[in-house]
């Protein structure tokens, strides 16, 4: 079944290559993503029944447990919504003549290979292959970032590939050291297998593990967008087509963060304390939030602003993991989910705004609430949500993380954290709120939504994040709690 999960995108890619008719391609993508959702649901059930799912195929490298299933579900859910959204979006782009119809299949091919690499990264237990998959995500999304083939997007793509590849290469170095530290502890068929590494973490060579960790942190941190390795992120997110931005920000960052979490779990178990990793993670996390705050204050481009806000939230998750108490891990995982949903909603909405106004400049946009009755409201509420206003879901997880920081008696970190969040909200309010009101100068824009299905999907997302702010199903809670136990090691 897991094999199907991995193979669905591959098959989809092949079919895209075969069928050139765009309508058929839309259908294929819908079918593929909904199929993978169904499989994901099935897998989730299995995981909840048997605690983990693994397959003998390909030397048994496929292994899914609570942690990976959470991230996996996020990936597939977002990709379903994105594929729904993409139909309307791409059609409009073609109508506006931004791209010609022939590139549609390229879009889908790249998008599904992107999804494939992410699914692969989350379903294998061999760190080497996970690394390969994550490098794969860079390569497959490179041309998506540069999809419009203009100066800016090419530049963004170039920076994206170079910086991420270098970072990932450093991560590889870390993995090699992890491998080195495990030589003599594991026998050869379970080399680099993180379940094995985790089980025997106590007997690994700590000095090398520590060395390995810093390289892994830098490497995957680059992909996660932790400052100061975040520099590729605003460019890529702002230049990619909006659905892809949603995928990048809502999904890719989480997959990279997943790698870090795995490493942290092993290292902390090996060292027997979270001080070593905690210092680094909290430092990088706060630094990311700070950088995001500063940049958001001075931002003129709304997609870049959203991108910086992603950096901020990755920082928050990093801090949560750095604290490394059950509560903070719970908060971090919950925050992963909430941030993915909220942020991808925002990026998709920004896609609608972009298509309506045909500019990324905040100053050129006025009266979004009038022109886009649905998207406008969703975007406004979404901004409140991403800033952590109750009753939206981001608030709940942020609150958990903040509480855990203070319970860990790290008062200065906590206060800085809260104040920085306030500054970020201020930045968003100052820069972005003005797009909603007033009347836009050029009158030729007519009122109303393009891309109805996409808008419906967005509204669904909004409803979801509003409800989950106050209430989450117990199954999800168990899932997260189990994952947290896996990380903490109980």
């Amino acid at each position, binding site marked *: 079944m897991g094999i199907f999960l991995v193979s669905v995108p591959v098959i989809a890619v092949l079919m895209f290559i075969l069928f050139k008719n765009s309508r058929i391609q839309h259908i294929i993508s819908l079918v593929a993503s909904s199929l993978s959702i169904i499989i994901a649901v099935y897998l989730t059930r299995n995981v909840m029944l048997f605690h983990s799912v693994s397959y003998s195929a390909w030397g048994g490298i496929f292994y899914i447990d609570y942690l990976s299933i959470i991230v996996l579900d996020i990936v597939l859910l977002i990709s379903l919504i994105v594929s729904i959204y993409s139909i309307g979006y791409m059609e409009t782009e073609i109508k506006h003549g931004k791209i010609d119809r022939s590139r549609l299949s390229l879009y889908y091919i790249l998008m599904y290979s992107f999804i494939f690499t992410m699914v692969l990264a989350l379903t294998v237990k061999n760190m080497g292959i996970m690394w390969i998959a994550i490098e794969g995500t860079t390569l497959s999304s490179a041309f998506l970032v540069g999809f419009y083939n203009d100066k800016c997007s090419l530049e963004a793509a170039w920076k994206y590939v170079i*910086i991420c590849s270098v970072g990932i290469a450093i991560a590889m170095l870390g993995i090699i050291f992890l491998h080195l530290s495990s030589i003599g502890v594991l026998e050869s068929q379970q080399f680099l297998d993180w379940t094995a590494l985790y089980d025997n973490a106590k007997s690994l060579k700590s000095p090398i593990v520590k060395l390995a960790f810093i390289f892994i942190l830098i490497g995957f941190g*680059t992909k996660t967008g932790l400052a100061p390795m975040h520099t590729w992120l605003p460019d890529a997110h702002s230049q990619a087509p909006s659905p892809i931005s949603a995928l990048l920000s809502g999904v890719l960052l989480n997959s990279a963060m997943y790698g870090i979490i795995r490493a942290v779990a092993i290292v902390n178990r090996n060292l027997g304390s979270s001080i070593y990793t905690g210092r680094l993670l909290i430092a990088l996390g706060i630094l990311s939030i700070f950088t995001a705050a500063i940049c958001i204050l001075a931002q003129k481009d709304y997609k870049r602003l959203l991108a910086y806000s992603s950096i901020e939230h990755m920082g928050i998750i990093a801090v949560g993991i750095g604290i490394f108490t059950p509560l903070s891990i719970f908060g971090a995982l919950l925050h992963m989910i909430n941030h993915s949903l909220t942020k991808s909603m925002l990026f998709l909405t920004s896609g609608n705004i972009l298509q309506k106004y045909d500019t990324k400049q905040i100053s050129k946009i006025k009266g979004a609430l009038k022109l886009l009755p649905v998207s406008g409201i969703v975007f406004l509420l979404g901004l409140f949500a991403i800033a952590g206003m109750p009753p939206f879901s981001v608030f709940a997880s942020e609150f958990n993380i903040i509480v855990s920081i203070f319970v860990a008696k790290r008062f200065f970190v906590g206060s800085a954290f809260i104040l920085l969040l306030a500054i970020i909200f201020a930045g968003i309010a100052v820069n972005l709120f003005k797009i909603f009101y007033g009347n836009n100068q050029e009158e030729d824009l007519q009122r109303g939504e393009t891309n109805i299905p996409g808008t419906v999907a967005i509204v669904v997302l909004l409803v979801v994040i509003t409800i989950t702010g106050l209430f989450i199903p117990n199954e999800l809670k168990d899932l997260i709690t189990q994952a947290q136990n896996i990380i903490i090691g109980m």
Partner: protein
Amino acid sequence: MEVGLATNLFKAAILFYLLGAAVALILINRHKLCNIISNAIYSVASALLIVSSIIKIISGSGQINISLFESPIPFITMNIRIDNLSAIFLLALSLLVLCVSLYSMGYISHYYGKRNVGIFNFLYSTFILSMIFVFTSANVVFFYIAWELMSMLSYFLVIFESEHEGNQRAGIIYIIMTYVGTAFLLIGFMLIYSYTNSFDIFGSSAAIPEFAKNIIFIMFLIGFATKAGAIPFHVWLPQAHPAAPSNVSALMSGIMIKTAIYGFVRFVLCYLGIQNTWWGVLILCIGIVSAVLGVAYALMEHNIKRLLAYSSVENIGIILIGLGVCFIAFAQENLLLGEMALVAALFHTFNHTLFKGGLFLGAGAIQYSTHTKDMEKLGGLIKTMPITALFILCFSLAVSAIVPFNGFVSEWLTYQSLFANIVSGQAGLNILSILAVAALGFAGAMAAACFVKLFGISFLGLPRSDHSLNAKEVPITMKIGMGMLATLCFAIGLFPLLILKLIDKVVFSLMGSSILEQLHGGCGIAYYSLNLSSGSISPAVMLIAIAGVILLALLGIRIIGGKYIERKYGTWDCGFEALNSRMQYTATGFSKPIKIVFKILFRPSRETVVTGDLAYHPESIEYITADESIIEKYIYNPVCERIKYFSRRMTFGVQTGSIHSYLTYIFVTVLLLMLYNMIA
């Protein structure tokens, strides 16, 4: 049994508000119907809430507990606990909401067809609900959620007329200030939790060390002072309150900023307990500054609603003076004085809710019939809108602390508590208290001037523009809304014990002893405290005296001078024939002397623009005066500029666009972390 009744009434009220919200959304396209029905529902709900809270207070110091729901997410639990303190604030809230809702039936009618009344009423009711929950939440998380919701919803209401640039700016300043303030609150709550491991508002703070309590107090001070709009955290208030529709401004200025007072009493006084005298001193100082500066800036405004907003700052200052004395007294274990100061503060809170709400409704009425908020365009409205004029006169007298209206009684209590706070032996405090007395006096006189200006310029004299010339009296429902408030102000002014008894019960249930024995004598108030016995007043008697004298005067003059003969004639114009409305004193002119005397506060600037080349016959001469608040000029604007500059520099310094610098970051990070690894 009574408590049970109160509980059920409370639940019913909540359900009614929800119902109203639902109705507003259902009838979203039938503007008139939607407005009438939902406002009727809100009025009913408020009536229920009034009864419920009164029953609650009278029925003694028990508590109403309602558990709403428990979320699977950690800490997200919502349960309600109403004690007398919550109840008195609920009473104020519901009284105001009742009047405002009646008023809105008429007031909103000018939105029909233009704006989305359904959304408005939905926001309106949810806003009220959020405030109710702020007053009644039993755990910090729920309080925080309600607090944030209150800010967000009120923000939406502030920018409801969002097509004006000014309103957008006001909304942004408001939401930012309140969010940052709340961040400080959150830090405070978190510190509390980190020591006590509980979010229970009614829990004990024994586990918190002294030092931490001071920090927490500072955090709360910043947070709540921001919401209260006390100087120097007030900048949002004169922006946001005028921007909102008037019935919302009435709610915001009348009760929303009081949530901060509730917060002070609930969290600092009841939860933390007063540790040091300097807490009270700090609050007292803030109060003094707010009272003086607030009214001073109010006097300079000629936009009615901005004037009222600044006057809210002043009244918050007066309330804070009361609170400050209360805190000082409790810090020195002077229970009786502390309780009286608390009574004074709560009573003034209550009164301010009534008359400031009324004033904003009045401003709304003016705007409704003249379509302007600018005094310079008004005048002579007393002829076209006599009833409204009468009501606004009452509110003006009340807010200027003049007998026989309610404002006077609470200020009297504040004076008395300051009076009692002065005992020989504590030099610093004495000086502070006497300064507070002086400040109160100054504020009182300035407030009187301020509202003479408001009433005199906009209602008396000749109409200064067509706006006021063709004004019409407002619909009956609006009059009812204002009238009820005016009546309340007058009644409470005459028989203060009506409310004082309730407030005394509140204080009794908080502090365990009552000062009702000191507040004796039918409708008079007298206060005797520790070895000093000071005066007693009786507004009613004074009123009777005044009335008697007036009758006597009428009688006497009738006897001496015979029948009253009156000749109508033009105003004295020094023989210059064509006296016109532009020759009246303007609002600006009225406050000019004070502006000049207190230059230091207003930084007045003026310029004369002469167009046309002819030296002696210019085409036009334009005379522009401006003044700006020193707080903005010297604190907020520079800071904002710095932040903006810094952030832009940083942003372009970090995100340079050159891939080499990006790679350098990674490179340096690698080296640093390797060093860290070597050291750690």
